[in-house]
């Protein structure tokens, strides 16, 4: 079953994650869940300041909330295949604000084998309700060697 999955999932196949509605409440819950209480995510008055040349205009979602949504998507995809989410690298492209709805997705980019396992390299992106990428990255999922 597992061996077949690796062989039958082709480069170009898509992985779709669930959409996530960002609100002041979701950001506050992420503060409590992650213990990251940086005022960037809590304090509108503070966010009237400029950060270098950037003014966010109000509180923003934690960048790592994107990261958590991507690992959620990849783990939920890999587990039923007997595969394991092994690595994720991300960059943030745009701030995410209350009222946005974001959704992670992935595309199988490459398949390769090492001495002891088989791997899928996956391009990942988190897009907002306008279809704009807010975060991009690359992930590795490990499949057991063929029996």
């Amino acid at each position, binding site marked *: 079953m597992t061996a077949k999955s690796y062989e039958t999932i082709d480069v170009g196949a898509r992985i779709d994650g669930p959409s996530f509605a960002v609100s002041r409440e979701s950001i506050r*819950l992420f503060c409590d869940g*992650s213990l990251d209480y*940086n005022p960037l995510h809590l304090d509108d008055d503070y966010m009237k300041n400029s950060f270098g040349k950037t003014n966010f205009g109000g509180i923003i979602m*934690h960048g*790592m909330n994107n990261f958590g949504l991507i*690992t959620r998507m990849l*783990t939920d995809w890999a587990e039923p295949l007997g595969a394991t989410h092994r690595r994720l690298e*991300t960059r943030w492209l745009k701030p995410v604000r209350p009222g946005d709805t974001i959704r992670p997705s992935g595309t199988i980019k490459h398949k390769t084998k090492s001495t002891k396992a088989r791997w899928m390299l996956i391009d990942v992106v988190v897009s907002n309700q306008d279809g704009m990428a807010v975060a991009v990255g690359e992930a590795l999922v490990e499949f057991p060697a063929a029996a």
Partner: protein
Amino acid sequence: MAQADLGADFETDFWKDAASRKIWDDIVPGEPRKTLPYVLTLEAIQLYCRSVGETNPLYFDEAYAKTSRWGGLIAPPSIHILLMFACTPTDDWMRSPGTINAGQSWSYNIPARPGDTIRLEARALDKFIRKDRLFVVHDNVFFNQNNQVICSGRGQTIRPM
């Protein structure tokens, strides 16, 4: 003595110890960060899970998790997001207000589990300036009570001026 149940005791006002935290100029690449062992509770795992909408029974349903290849409840890979703050003291520079995360990469070895005593080894690895912005590269490894690596990761933050 490991910390546990940080929910009630955790200092959520990141301004409070701001003056005691290292600024970019004072951060020495290679120098270890002060860290604290932390007992990861099921409650902390599930609160984190709820904050990103996790529903996988591996994190919530013990009977199901016992039948899985993991043999019991586990934490999701991205639990390191919580562990970064749970395993560091209030004067750690990762808490400096205005710290902007510019991206991270993490490698996952084995899952963290409820009841694990987690230890962090962390340091700044590098610092640089780009487009007038002050960057620090941080480098972290989380271990369980058996000295097994849970995950390791690296990230870049833009430091507040």
